[in-house]
């Protein structure tokens, strides 16, 4: 192996029943490089990483690591770790019942005379975290801390253990901008020390901000490997979805109707203690309203209060002019509301049930337990939405867990569209979704608005909201602080409203 290369993967093939997840894929990582691994959902990024770290075995190909003459085969994450390949996953992989220090050192605790030296472990943990500018009580159980903080500890652990290769699999999904910058500073430090970092992500901005090279996968195959300077954004996206992408510009021109002035939702001093302070909000028929704010500012909580997913403690809510006191989501559904939750896996998909069952279930709940939809009706509805939303599935009866993330999201959207709501809440509908599907969903939102449905759109990507919304509400630290009308909306004004006074 050449001296500046730390890892090569050649001709990797991985087959699952029914699908070829990786087809003759090559990957090269150099020492002291931050290398982005990109592709749509189902492109094979996750699988490639799992093959490298020994979570999966692979069917063909070879992996070589610097320092080893023979090709290596990792049979488990433990083996990979021993060889110097560490991973930090998207879902926080820590033990909530153990303390921060323990999570960092589990399996390699400092020992004195055969017993664990707690004092030393705590001081080592404090030292490591202070290098990352994190000050926490390392003796406290992990579960007391926010997800963002847990992620940073996970990274600290991997950083402490990795020597050659550090893999970051979507580490920034739950971090706010400040925390992302901290992470990038750390990544650059490690790169300068000669560590090879594989950065798997969907966020284009972040890739251009910190990476040196990009490898693009599509449908399980390698599209190419490029130095960052040679691949401007539009070209990158085109390579990822395989077609010319001019849509990023404006799709708003698709709107044919304007909101007609009838009030659909009126919230007066509605609040839920501990999560969202009392707020006022008015939404018109056919209007698309966006909620912007930092992580933890209360956007999801506001949406949940409107829907009744969390019962509000104070204030009043009027739906289509009539007072509404939600006590259970079924009340909201009867009033014509729909809610796409942020956490698709935990609150959206009913994994083992089929596509058909997942799609018809909200409508069934609306009709009531004793008015079962006939099988024929169910099948018709399912087919209708499979074609409307272009859901890629083998069959109506396929368990939804076998679908890719993007298609699962489409199933849930179909579920709600079937209930023909007057008002639909979309909380991060495009999170973790590839660019092609993202745009489809955005266009769908505009179509819905045209038909007279009101939409509440929450997204961490401001340009996505700019593309679709008529009107925005800004939240900060658990309360609504501002509203912006169409003419005032721009990246700058929104960021300014979010940041507040101390810029």
């Amino acid at each position, binding site marked *: 192996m050449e001296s500046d290369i730390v890892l090569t993967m050649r001709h990797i093939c991985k087959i699952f029943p029914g699908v070829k997840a990786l087809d003759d894929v090559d990957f090269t990582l150099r020492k002291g490089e931050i290398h982005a691994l990109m592709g749509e959902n189902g492109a094979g990024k996750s699988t490639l990483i799992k093959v490298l770290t020994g979570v999966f075995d692979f069917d063909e190909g070879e992996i070589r690591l610097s320092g080893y003459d023979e090709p290596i085969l990792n049979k488990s994450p433990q083996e990979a770790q021993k060889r110097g390949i560490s991973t930090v996953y998207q879902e926080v992989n820590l033990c909530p019942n153990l303390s921060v220090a323990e999570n960092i050192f589990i399996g390699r605790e400092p020992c004195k005379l055969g017993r664990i030296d707690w004092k030393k472990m705590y001081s080592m943990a404090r030292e490591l975290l202070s290098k990352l500018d994190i000050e926490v009580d390392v003796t406290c159980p992990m579960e007391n801390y926010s997800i963002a903080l847990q992620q940073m500890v996970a990274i600290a652990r991997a950083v402490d253990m990795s020597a050659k290769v550090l893999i970051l699999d979507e580490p920034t999904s739950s971090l706010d901008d400040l925390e992302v910058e901290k992470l990038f500073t750390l990544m650059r430090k490690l790169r300068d020390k000669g560590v090879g970092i594989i950065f798997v992500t969907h966020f284009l901005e972040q890739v251009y901000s910190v990476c040196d090279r990009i490898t693009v996968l599509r449908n399980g195959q390698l599209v190419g490997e490029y130095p960052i300077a040679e691949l401007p954004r539009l070209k990158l996206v085109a390579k990822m979805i395989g077609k010319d992408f001019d849509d990023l510009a404006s799709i708003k021109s698709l709107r044919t109707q304007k909101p007609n002035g009838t009030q659909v939702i009126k919230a007066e001093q509605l609040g839920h203690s501990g999560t969202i302070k009392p707020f006022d909000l008015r939404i018109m028929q056919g209007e698309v309203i966006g909620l912007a704010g930092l992580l933890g500012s209360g956007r999801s909580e506001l949406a949940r209060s409107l829907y009744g*997913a969390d019962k509000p403690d104070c204030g009043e809510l009027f739906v289509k002019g009539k007072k509404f006191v939600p006590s*259970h*989501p*079924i009340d909201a*559904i009867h009033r014509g509301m729909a*809610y796409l*939750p942020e956490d698709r896996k*935990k*609150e*959206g*998909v*009913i*994994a*083992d*049930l089929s596509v058909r*069952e997942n799609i018809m*279930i*909200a409508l*069934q*709940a*609306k009709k*009531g*337990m*004793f*008015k*079962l939809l006939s099988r024929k009706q169910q099948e018709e509805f399912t087919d209708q939405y499979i074609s409307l939303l272009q859901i890629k599935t083998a069959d109506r009866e396929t368990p939804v867990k076998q679908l890719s993330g993007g298609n699962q999201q489409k199933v849930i959207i179909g*579920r709600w569209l079937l209930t023909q709501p007057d008002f639909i809440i979309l909380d991060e509908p495009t999170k973790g979704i590839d660019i092609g599907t993202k745009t489809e969903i955005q266009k769908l939102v505009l179509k819905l608005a045209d038909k007279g449905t009101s939409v509440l759109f929450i997204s961490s990507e401001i340009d996505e909201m700019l593309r679709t919304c008529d009107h925005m509400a800004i939240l900060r630290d658990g309360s609504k602080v501002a509203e912006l009308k169409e003419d005032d909306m721009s990246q700058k004004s929104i960021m300014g409203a979010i940041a507040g006074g101390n810029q």
Partner: protein
Amino acid sequence: MIRAFLKKLTSYRLFLPIASLILVLLVNMIKTPTFFQLEMRNGVLYGYIIDVINRASELVILAVGMTLVVAASGGTDISVGAVMAVAGAVCCFVLAGGQRTVNAYQNPYILGVLAALLAGILCGAWNGFLVSKMKIQPMVATLILFTAGRGIAQLVTRGQITYIRVENFKLLGANIPGVPLPTSIFIAILVVILTNLLLKKSALGLYIEAVGVNKNASRLVGIKSDQIIFLVYVFCGLCAGIAGMITTSRIYSADANNIGLNMELDAILAVALGGNSLAGGRFTLLGSVIGAYTIQALTTTLYAMGVSADQIPVYKAIVVVLIVSLQSEEFVRWFSKMQARRKVVA
């Protein structure tokens, strides 16, 4: 060709319960050649197989309730045996008017039955309350009645076995004059049919599966998850009440220590043998019913082989571990890896 057929056969949902049942019946037949023999005497059908189906009735009813509990909450109700004892005790208490042994009903029969069913429902409601409202783990929540249930039954019968020496009373556990098969069989079948109708003709079956797979998502689509979970525990308690009534009728007494002893274990095993995942979600009622009859047939086989009642559990344990192991994902995965490897070598 054969391999493809076998693969399709084993992937069929009810394959394992049916295969297990057939296996056990075959062993029975080998051990007792007269196993399937039926004899009609005085208008009543007799035979080993009738015996098996008869004695399995309580288990079948318990298995129905347990299946729904497992499906909706991913947990098990280990109090069903104790609830059977409570239901039996309450029934006999009402019918005996508080005395230790009676030769005639002190209160109308129907009152005794209703009391027993009500006791079952109340116990189920207590369990349901702990699990759905207090969000306590099912095994833990039902542990409480498991521990205290028989004590409560003892309190109801004042620590003595209450006897109801009325001919009519034994009908439930025996034969109604003129009917060739024991009453309990009909009751078990009725319970299964009615439950199945309710699950399939309404959205309840779908709701139970949805809640079992993902409680939070189900709530957000408008299903009252907590209510469904509460409901299945009440239903399970009701089933235990019915089963308790049948057992009490068989022995025409309320023996708080022995009614339903170890039946919770059998019920859970029936559900597992039926191919249902004990983690909840999708379920098959028919599978559990087949599992219940299989367990009873297994028990009969063992009796026929001269094994005493105390010793039977050893064999049940081994059989169950074997079957659940074969069903486990890990084994299936390992097995198909072995197959693949053999193909490569060949």
